[in-house]
């Protein structure tokens, strides 16, 4: 009986150490960096695509040829930075 209890206790500490180990090595460092890079780059690119798209549409319908594109390109870039700021904040929270 006593022996059984001890073995269960031992099992618990064993599980804890393994869990700790797994937590540390759940993602290899390189993989994490790669994923992070992908995240950041897609956020910037996506915002720029939307900004440029809106700019081209505005130019097409209002006939303000270069200015719509220029202004909305800048807005798109800023929105990209905003996206990254949000991603960073989310990561920091975790």
């Amino acid at each position, binding site marked *: 009986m006593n022996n059984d209890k001890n073995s269960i206790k031992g099992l618990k500490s064993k599980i804890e150490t393994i869990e700790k180990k797994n937590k540390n090595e759940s993602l290899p460092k390189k993989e994490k960096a790669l994923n992070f890079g992908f995240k950041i780059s897609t956020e910037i690119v996506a*915002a720029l695509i*939307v900004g440029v798209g809106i700019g081209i549409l505005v130019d097409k319908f209002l006939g303000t040829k270069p200015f719509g594109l220029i202004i909305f390109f800048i807005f798109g870039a800023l929105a990209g930075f905003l996206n990254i700021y949000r991603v960073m904040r989310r990561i920091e929270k975790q």
Partner: protein
Amino acid sequence: MASSGEHSGHEKHSPLDQFEINPLVNFEVGGVNLAFTNSSVSMVITVLFITLFLTLTVNPRSIVPSRMQLISELCYNFIAQLLNDTVGDQGKRYFPFVFSIFMFVLIGNMVGMIPYQFTFTSHIIVTFALATVVFIGVTILGFVNHGIRFFTFFYIPGVPFYMHPLLIPIEVISYLSRPISLSVRLFANMLAGHTLLKVFAGFVVSMPFFTGVLPLTFIVALTGLEILIAFLQAYVFAILTCLYINDAYHLH
């Protein structure tokens, strides 16, 4: 690959050949091409696999689950936990939606890892359609919950009033960029991974003597990494869907 292709005569193998869509059954409605393609076959396999696996493994409903039943329950718990953590109690309603998307993307990625199988998530139109469904659904959800006040989502409190003409367009663009970043991330990961595998597979054939073993071992390692990425991307897709649903409930 280009060189090995030239050596073997007319046959050419590009690492991008695997992404080619071939219609199997031609079908056209009113000038719109609705052919049943190899991409459709992959999707049908994915849906059939998910349906059969989940229904058959959970069917015994044993209190002490078998291994297979445990896998199904693990999937269920994983998404239920995710929704509970990010959205809270209201999130339970959207479980079927998030679970379907997660399983579709996950099994779609995994089916793509089987040799000779087509990876439908490596096409931007597929991922973009999925992301658009999420985006439109979440936007409608926001309007249903908050009505016209949903537009205050783009209004940041505590900022000097003269900054708003600058900040509101930025917020709107940031919001509109969601489906694009969501779809591009999944598509780019799958496309890059599968291309890389095929490029190294080309080295195996073209390298002299036994040196081809080196890229072969690398492919084995890379396949493991790809399976990890396949899971990770499905997870990212699901968690972002949850976060967007959360935004539709709690503005700011």
